[in-house]
């Protein structure tokens, strides 16, 4: 099995599996984030965030998620470096005029770096404050969860205040669009790599992948933009 994972297809398998795992994470993340748009002063979002923070299953998955990110990033860089070496130093003087190759598929590392750069800001904005340092905005508030009044952190206040800055919203939109373009190739490519594709499924997977990519991209960016435009306190 070690020789399988060490081979070119094995390394791609690790990219594929970690990528699909990160896709699952994105679905959960966007679902919870969509609660930010419920105009109830953030109670439902706070309840959702509380559920995510206290749910034992999520606590188990969180370190796995970190490993998923690391594997995806490390192998992405490793594969790209190997591929540059395999390609050799000489370039074609007459360029590349091959048609029908998507820009995304040839720039996955650049798109990945865009997403990773966004992640640094994103983690500093929320994860660090919620899990490590705390923030005055996170002061407890009471929400009604299934009829039971529960004291929870006011995550909504932190999100709402963060999206009050235009530059942060702009960076989030850039990150989300970069992610969408990354996924427009990554989604179908992950299935191709594990062998789940053929003449029929290739078309289906790339259509599905494009739809998914833009639901994620437009979903995340529109939440940030709408928060900036319509959900600010004054």
């Amino acid at each position, binding site marked *: *099995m070690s020789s399988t994972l060490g081979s070119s297809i094995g390394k791609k398998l690790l990219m594929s599996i970690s990528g699909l795992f990160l896709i699952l994470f994105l679905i959960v993340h966007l679902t919870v984030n969509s609660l930010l748009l419920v105009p109830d002063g953030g109670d439902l979002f706070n309840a959702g965030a509380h559920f995510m923070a206290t749910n034992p299953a999520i606590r188990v998955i969180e370190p796995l998620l970190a490993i998923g990110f690391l594997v995806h990033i490390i192998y992405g860089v490793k594969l790209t470096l190997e*591929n540059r070496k*395999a390609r050799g130093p000489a370039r074609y003087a007459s360029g590349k005029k091959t048609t*029908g190759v998507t820009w995304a598929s040839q720039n996955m590392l650049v798109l990945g770096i865009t997403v990773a750069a966004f992640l640094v800001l994103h983690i500093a904005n929320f994860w660090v404050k919620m899990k490590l340092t705390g923030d005055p905005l996170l002061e407890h508030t009471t929400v009604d969860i299934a009829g039971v009044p529960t004291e929870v952190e006011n995550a909504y206040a932190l999100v709402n205040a963060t999206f009050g800055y235009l530059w942060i919203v702009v960076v989030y939109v850039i990150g989300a669009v970069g992610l969408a373009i990354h996924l427009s*190739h990554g989604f179908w490519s992950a299935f191709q790599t594990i*062998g789940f594709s053929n003449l029929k499924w290739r078309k289906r997977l790339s259509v599905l992948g494009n739809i998914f990519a833009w639901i994620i991209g437009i979903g995340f960016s529109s939440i940030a933009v709408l928060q900036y435009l319509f959900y600010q306190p004054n």
Partner: protein
Amino acid sequence: METTINIKLKVWRQAGPKAKGRFETYELNNISTDSSFLEMLDILNEQLINEGKEPVAFDHDCREGICGMCSLYINGRPHGPDDDVTTCQLHMRKFKDGETITVEPWRSAGFPIIKDLIVDRTAFDKIIAAGGYISVSTGGVPDANAIPIPKEDADEAMDAASCIGCGACVAACKNGSAMLFVSAKVSQLALLPQGRVEAARRAKNMVAKMDELGFGNCTNTGACEVECPKGISLANIARLNREFLKAGIQD
């Protein structure tokens, strides 16, 4: 009615594997648009020999698109501007009068240059030798329909078998990956009962040899499929991934 064009050729010249190469420009007049690209290069070489110069070295053999010997990266595309043809099947009517045509060798670390436009493609032979065959017990000729094979499988196997191993896939790939070639060679046998016997071993050995020879990792860009003169499909790469991962799980 025959029409002729005048062209300028920008050709890669390199004396040997270690020598430093450069582009040389040549002018060719009155080239018939009915001639093939290789016939045009023959005319160029005749002209060069008459001038007492060294002719351009390029690979060619059958000149009917089935041997996989001709290569050439022409004006930004392997096998030139036409689709689904090899360089020998490319006609000069695809070029305009007065056009400058750039001719380069395949460029990939797996295919080192031997001379001018000729690259060393023995890496492909080594991959085939690692498992691209079936071990047949020879004997009497079996009945044609003794082993029933679904039409779809036979068709797909035949499509995969049309790979001529020219290397355009590697030349077009930004990763210098040979996956389209290897996947065609694995698929043509994996789809048929006779090839199933050694399927797991074949997939493992051919991929191991491909990695060992320094070809890159496939990132599914699909440039190979677009430039393949035989239209080999990316679906073969998915099949190779399946065969290889299945073989890994069996261990």
